[in-house]
């Protein structure tokens, strides 16, 4: 811990994040004492229940009922064309029975992230972008997984949460700066967030008891040696790039991604790449439904 004096001394800065604050943030992260947002109660219960055996649809539906906002979101998403091309779903139990406990967990996580985790005062616009980008990454990860015959559900979850560390670090950093009454440039703040988001994200995934594949993907999706990483890490790394490019108009082209190390690591040849890129329109429509 650093004393108030030390922090105060570092106040006279040029807009950069003072070294003391930076090291305070890092040491909290390393010590595991960084304040992590709790997965909102109901979403947490659903996440752990979905992984258990003999979980029935009634139990999950009852859990959902206790959170009106979550229930409304679940019904809205379940009734969207992405999930339900057929009959309309009116009850929560019907929703759980038809979507399945694992899919409900996915939806609950999306909503929980939207409402509980992706927050940081003064940085609403950036956080919104992170969330939209995360949904995009999740959807692209799904398409990449499909085309490399890897697990599609895992890919979605890893993609959705890959940047969850950003709002976590941002929130902690904003609080620290406020406490120390230091004003730092947005650029400097976001730079530090970028630097630390992998570590914070994986710490969060561990705290939420998410599968190991997710923890690893969150920790290493910017790894410079993708060929040494597992498949989910490679997929997220590539999906991350796809999602960034697709946010620019006409940004996502095969020329723009050629040479990305994940392509070689995943053995994606140009013909397969074309197939994935063709799905970009559908991905964009789905982002609209989910964010």
């Amino acid at each position, binding site marked *: 811990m650093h004393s108030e004096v030390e922090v105060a001394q570092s106040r006279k800065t040029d807009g950069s994040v003072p070294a003391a604050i930076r090291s305070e943030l890092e040491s909290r992260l390393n010590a595991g004492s960084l304040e992590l947002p709790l997965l909102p109660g109901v979403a947490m219960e659903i996440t752990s229940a979905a992984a258990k055996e003999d979980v029935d649809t009634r139990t999950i539906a009852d859990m959902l009922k206790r959170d009106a906002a979550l229930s409304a979101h679940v019904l809205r998403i379940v009734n969207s064309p992405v999930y339900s091309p057929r009959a309309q779903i009116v009850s929560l139990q019907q929703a759980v029975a038809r979507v399945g406990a694992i899919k409900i967990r996915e939806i609950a996580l999306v909503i929980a992230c939207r409402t509980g985790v992706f927050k940081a005062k003064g940085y609403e616009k950036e956080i919104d972008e992170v969330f939209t980008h995360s949904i995009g990454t999740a959807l692209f990860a799904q398409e990449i997984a499909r085309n490399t015959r890897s697990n599609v559900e895992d890919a979605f979850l890893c993609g959705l949460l890959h940047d969850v560390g950003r709002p976590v670090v941002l929130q902690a950093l904003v609080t620290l700066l406020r406490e120390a009454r230091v004003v730092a440039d947005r650029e400097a703040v976001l730079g530090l967030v970028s630097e630390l988001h992998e570590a914070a994200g994986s710490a969060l995934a561990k705290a939420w008891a998410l599968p190991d594949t997710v923890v690893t993907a969150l920790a290493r999706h910017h790894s410079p040696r993708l060929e040494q990483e597992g498949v989910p890490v490679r997929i997220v790394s590539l999906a991350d790039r796809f999602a960034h490019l697709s946010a620019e108009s006409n940004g996502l082209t095969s020329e723009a991604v*050629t*040479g990305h190390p994940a392509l070689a690591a995943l053995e994606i040849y140009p013909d397969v790449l074309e197939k994935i890129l063709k799905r970009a329109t559908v991905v964009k429509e789905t982002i609209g439904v989910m964010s």
Partner: protein
Amino acid sequence: MNESFDLIVIGGGPAGQKAAVQGAKLGRKVMLVERSRSVGGACVRFGTIPSKTLRETALALGKFRRLTSHVMDVKMPEHTQIESLMARKEEVIASHERYMGAQLARNGIEQAQGVARFLSPNELELTDITGGRRRVGAPYFVIATGSSPRTPDDVPIDHEHLLDSDSILSVSYLPESLTVLGSGVIACEYASIFAALGSQVTVIDRSPRPLAFLDPEISDHFTRQLQEFGGRYLGGRKLVNVAWDGLSMVETKLDDGQLVRSEKLFCALGRIAQVQGLGVEVAGIKLTPRGLIAVDEHGRTAAPHIYAVGDVIGPPALASTSMDQGRRAVCHAFGAEVGAAREATPTGIYTIPELASVGLTEAEAIERHGSALVGRANFREVARGQISAAEDGLLKLVAHPDTGVILGAHAAGETAADLVHIGQMAILGAMTYDTFIDAIFNFPTYAEAYRIAALDLFGKRAQRAAAAAE
């Protein structure tokens, strides 16, 4: 500049590897082109090795239950992670890759990662994963590009809910229920594995019985075991419609009005030759109406300096026969001596229980010789079967009605795929069933089944002779 070789092999699966090694052993300069980073191709990552690793786990669990007389039960929790049941997969793959890579390197074979396309009958363009191109030439080529799952237009494979044999093992959790389309080797192998691990499996096919090319007594062992695992075989049915319901279940409608709902669906309705992008027409290679590369008895395509081997030329499409084809094709190309092709090719099927066959079935022998001598050994009569709690098994011997020469051996049960090799040697040596009666076998072994089956055959023959004499 164009690099030249004496032989270029396209495809690094079992057939391509053996072709390349044979070329090098004959002192030629060989290049092996493979799409994947490691030799063995997709089959190592998606096929044989992972599925057999999973099967071993399923077998071990079943055996544990039987050996402890079900006093100790191993229950698979719902949503068990499939990956955790294939814990040894990565080690097995790594050691296989190491071994194969070392063999190719030792033989001085140049390996290239990329896809190949014929620019002319003697020139290939190789495109690597980054799009980099180079040209290579050779007087001889072997195409061993293998096959990929066939996806009928009305089965919307999404690799998430509806899977094929490339994606089936990517499911993270053991599905509660699985519909299997098809009744061939791949369909039945996966049906067995998932049923043994606790999934509710429904196998659907047009064929009235699964594995139709086998002796029915042998394939019955598969069906019976599937039922014991809680699964079912719906034969003689046609698909009307297959679709994911958009939420949680795959719905399969059949022509008899049945609707089968399952968490996942596995489509194994055959495989197609992988010739896309190869530029076969430029090279002067002809395809069959089914899209396979047409070859003569030496494996030569319509362009006589280009050979094709393995799955890309169609049945039997077994790793064992493909390796032999690869070796023979290269020997033929360089005029090296090679023995006559063997007739008695064994087939091993890694269902639970294991099934295997060599030579003629009873029906084929009757068709060819008017009648046949048949002897059976049930594994219940074999001490080894009792000891290993593997009493569900059968060895069926088929012999010539007059001479008693062994014509076929068919087995179901533990080690069946190994067991039929004894029958194979008897067929190749034109031995009679007496050989087995007079021979001494190790005790307790499954091989003893040969003696038991031969005695059964002898007994029946004697009865028949006595009846005829009366």
